[in-house]
């Protein structure tokens, strides 16, 4: 019993911690176009893992879209990674919500690179130097998160 519970290392141990470099990745958007994290170097990145069946995600995405419009000139880039098994469903929802930031198709390898996405939503804030500054999992206070975004946008690029 004890061995069964305690021998396994938590699967999240491999993910980036706050203060570490965000794992770079190359993915495709929901329409097949290649997108890499490096494309957005120098920007503050809000990296959100979501899925169509995730209730809190459906609340967050329109809010993130508003932030993208509001803070785009200040250097914010929202990237959303769908963890849906069915890309068509993700695309249908993205189309319906009229979101104005890249919507990427996720996979289990990308999830594992970010410590394992074992529940949604998960959001990373990455500063202009590519360092993870915050990881938020589950339902979160979006007002508070917006303040964190604003703080990062005011920090200079080192």
């Amino acid at each position, binding site marked *: 019993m004890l061995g069964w*519970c305690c021998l396994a290392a938590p699967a999240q141990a491999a993910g980036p911690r706050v203060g570490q470099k965000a794992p770079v990745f190359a993915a495709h958007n929901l329409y097949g176009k290649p997108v890499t994290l490096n494309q957005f170097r120098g920007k503050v990145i809000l990296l959100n893992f979501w899925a169509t*069946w995730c209730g809190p995600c459906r609340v967050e995405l329109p809010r993130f879209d508003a932030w993208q419009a509001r803070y785009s000139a200040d250097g914010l880039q929202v990237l959303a990674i769908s963890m849906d098994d069915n890309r068509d469903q993700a695309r249908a929802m993205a189309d319906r919500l009229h979101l104005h930031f890249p919507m990427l198709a996720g996979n289990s390898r990308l999830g594992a690179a970010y410590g394992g996405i*074992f*529940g*949604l939503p998960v959001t990373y804030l990455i500063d202009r130097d590519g360092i993870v500054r915050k990881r938020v999992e*589950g*339902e979160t206070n979006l007002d508070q998160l917006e303040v964190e975004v604003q703080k990062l946008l005011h920090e200079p690029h080192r």
Partner: protein
Amino acid sequence: MLINKAKCWMRMAAVGLAALCAGNQAWALQFGSAPVVSTTAIPQTGLISPEQLIAAMQKNRQEAPLVIQVGSRMMFDQGRIPAAVFAGPAVQPEGIDLLRNRVASLPRSKFIVIYCGCCPWSRCPNIGTAYQFLLGMGFKNLKALYLPNNFGMDWVAKGYKVEK
């Protein structure tokens, strides 16, 4: 086969109708997926904690539960409860089809534990849906793994064993 399928949905709808979550219902209608049954449809006696599940899994093969994941394939592939089998999101028709096929030949007395952990418990569209569906199929020895936050926070981060 089709008649059985229809009967099962009807029974499920009857049991779960009162528990339909308004937000999820709207979403289900919007995206053409299966009727969503809220987790509130699962009685307290239908829940099992991670600790209780671990204890149950130590029992001999006949008494140990069949553990079924009713969430996304992508999450299942990243890590799952050891020996768990995949059925897919119960909120989607293909998930329900797979779930039905997984259990169709089992005796209705079989101890089954379903889990998802995709989202906070009260927002999960899959677990209540799968629970009511299996009840509708006649499974009585059925439990839903209670993960209040999600599989990551309530299982993985607690150091319980994860199979990849």
